[in-house]
């Protein structure tokens, strides 16, 4: 399969691994931002193949994981309403609120549907004029353009029975928050390839200068990841604080201008709570005033709902690369994908789920 097979070539992977071993003279800690990359690393066992001197820590780039519990509780409240068709990307359905998840709402009679695009949700609104269709707009810069487009289209067509719960977050402020933490160990980043496809990589250049570290936009396949790690190691060894793009087939310096314009039409920057981490200033997107009638939380008056996390869940430390999932006392004991305490154990991109699925304790390597 073109664009896949060549990036999963075992021989090429071995060459890159040899090169990484050859270039590495000391211990380096590198964070891959994106949960998709985390899963690819664990799924392909890349962490097992790297020299001990290269430590990968897993970043907060899992939209499901960082969506605050309040948003989930509000979504559950809205989804249970009789007049509502609640639509969401599939991953959000299993994320537990304080007492239930969206699957349970569905089993209790709620009309909860998985969609693959917010534009599909808008189509459901078009053909169900007697229903209120709500879309759970979560995600990083990758999902923001399509989510913005759905709202923009709804406004253009005057569709009033459509609204969104917005929990959009952005990568650069999260990187800053991690680097500013007194416990930070990250010395270089693999930047999330698909976020960079939308936003370009120019926005990381100030981060490299400010914090004096390399950032390498990379893809998701094993060869992409190994090439990204190799480049990061080279930059670290040479003391170069630069952005070097290794995902050239998808990412440009400027990114996708049309997508950026669409985001800017509908959304504006806001402070945002990250589940497990806390408030990160300027890290989120919210609907502009002109589109506030599409804000489901206001439409259904659920903004008062607040809630707290399981005290056992250490997902905040996991999401900031301070704790490996299997070092959490609850890992694979109180907390499993069947009974997740936090979203990092739920999502297909969550680091805890990746460790559980591919590497859990007792696994013979």
């Amino acid at each position: 399969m073109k664009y896949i097979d060549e990036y999963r070539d075992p021989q090429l992977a071995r060459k890159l691994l040899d090169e990484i071993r050859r270039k590495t003279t000391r211990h380096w800690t590198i964070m891959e931002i994106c949960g998709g990359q985390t899963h690819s690393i664990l799924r392909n066992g890349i962490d097992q193949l790297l020299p001990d001197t290269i430590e990968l820590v897993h970043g907060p780039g899992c939209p499901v994981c960082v969506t605050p519990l309040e948003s989930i509780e509000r979504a559950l409240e809205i989804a249970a309403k009789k007049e509502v068709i609640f639509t969401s990307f599939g991953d959000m359905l299993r994320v537990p609120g304080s007492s239930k998840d969206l699957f349970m709402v569905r089993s209790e009679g709620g009309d909860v549907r998985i969609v693959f695009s917010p534009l599909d949700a808008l189509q459901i609104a078009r053909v169900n004029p007697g229903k209120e269709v709500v879309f759970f707009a979560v995600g990083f810069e990758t999902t923001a353009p399509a989510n913005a487009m759905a709202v923009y289209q709804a406004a253009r067509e005057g569709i009033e029975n459509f609204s969104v719960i917005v929990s959009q977050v952005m990568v650069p402020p999260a990187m800053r928050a991690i680097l500013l933490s007194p416990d930070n160990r990250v010395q270089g980043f693999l930047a999330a390839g698909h976020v960079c496809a939308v936003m370009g990589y120019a926005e990381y250049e100030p981060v490299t200068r400010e914090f004096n570290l390399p950032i390498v936009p990379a893809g998701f396949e094993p060869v992409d990841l190994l090439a990204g790690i190799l480049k990061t190691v080279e930059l670290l060894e040479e003391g170069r604080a630069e952005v070097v793009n290794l995902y050239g087939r998808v990412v440009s310096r400027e990114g996708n201008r049309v997508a950026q314009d669409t985001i800017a039409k509908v959304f504006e920057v806001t402070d945002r709570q990250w589940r497990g981490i806390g408030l990160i200033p300027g890290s989120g997107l919210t609907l502009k005033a002109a589109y506030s009638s599409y804000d489901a939380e206001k439409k259904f008056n659920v903004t008062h709902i607040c809630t707290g996390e399981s005290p056992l869940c250490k997902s905040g430390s996991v999401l900031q690369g301070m704790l490996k999932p299997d070092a959490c006392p609850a890992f694979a004991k109180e907390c499993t994908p069947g009974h997740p305490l936090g979203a990092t154990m739920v999502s297909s991109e969550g680091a805890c789920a990746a460790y559980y699925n591919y590497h859990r304790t007792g696994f013979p390597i």
Partner: protein
Amino acid sequence: MTITPLCQSPILQHETVQMAHGAGGRLSQTLMQRVFMPHLHNVFLDILDDQAKLDLPAGRTAYSTDTYVVSPVFFPGGNIGELAVNGTVNDLAVGGAKPMYLSAGFVLEEGFSLVELETIVISMAEAARKAGVMIVTGDTKVVGKGQCDKIFINTSGIGSVMDGVNLSCRNLQPGDTMILSGTVGDHGMAIMTSREGLSFQSKITSDCAALNSMIAAVLEVVPAIHAMRDPTRGGVAAALNELAASSSVGIEINEPSIPVKPDVRGACELLGIDPLHVANEGKLVLAVSSEYTETVLEVLRSFEHGRDAVTIGEVVDDHPGMVVMRTAFGSRRIIDLPLGEQLPRIC
């Protein structure tokens, strides 16, 4: 009473299932005579008793049941009717039985198209003929609009277990070879990519097929095969995990050896789904002592539904109950049971 199927007027496009079709009265009889009997009739069914009276061969009898609720009812490569026949035929066959007789129970939703129902019944008749089984008893109920999704079918089947064959999921031995009869994930991805709301097109077709003749042939040659599974829901991953757990052994499989069609792989990539977790309806996983590996492969490959048969791994002493994959890169990872519904990734 023996009835001869009457020459009936064709079913009209606009005709639909009515509540009265399931009420046991005149319309029920009409449904039997116009839709079911013309296609399914045989010496047992024609008698129209409430039961079929069967002569079974001496020896052990296998008995299995399954209920089919697939959506959409018609999917690329098949429909719920042939799925219901082939599924139960395969459930019997992987136990080492030669499937003989099936029952068929229908739950129909009020308003379901009679033309579509007849198409499904014709497929069942054709699938039964191909598999060499007879549908010998049946039942139809109608529920109100919205109380089921178009049509649900239950089939039960009985078959006669082949002499000298002792297949069980508890029989795996360290050193056994794990063999897979062909590509994985075809059925599940055919269903997923044809569901409403998934706006991409593919040429993926279901692998829905009866495997009983292939299974009988391989068991004739190698009756000592230890275990067989048809990896339906949960895919090959679930089948392997069940086998490993039941026999308290480990299973190690090689990633590059798992055959996946390019279209299925592409769709799985897009949706973020592991092909090993995707359902199959015409595939076989088996465990056999390694000295028979080549013989088994040779027999399987002589059949249409086994021509892509391959060795995918082996049974080991280590990590009992756990299935481990050796990746193309030389690393290893756990192959776990899929958890609940398959969810597409979001970015």
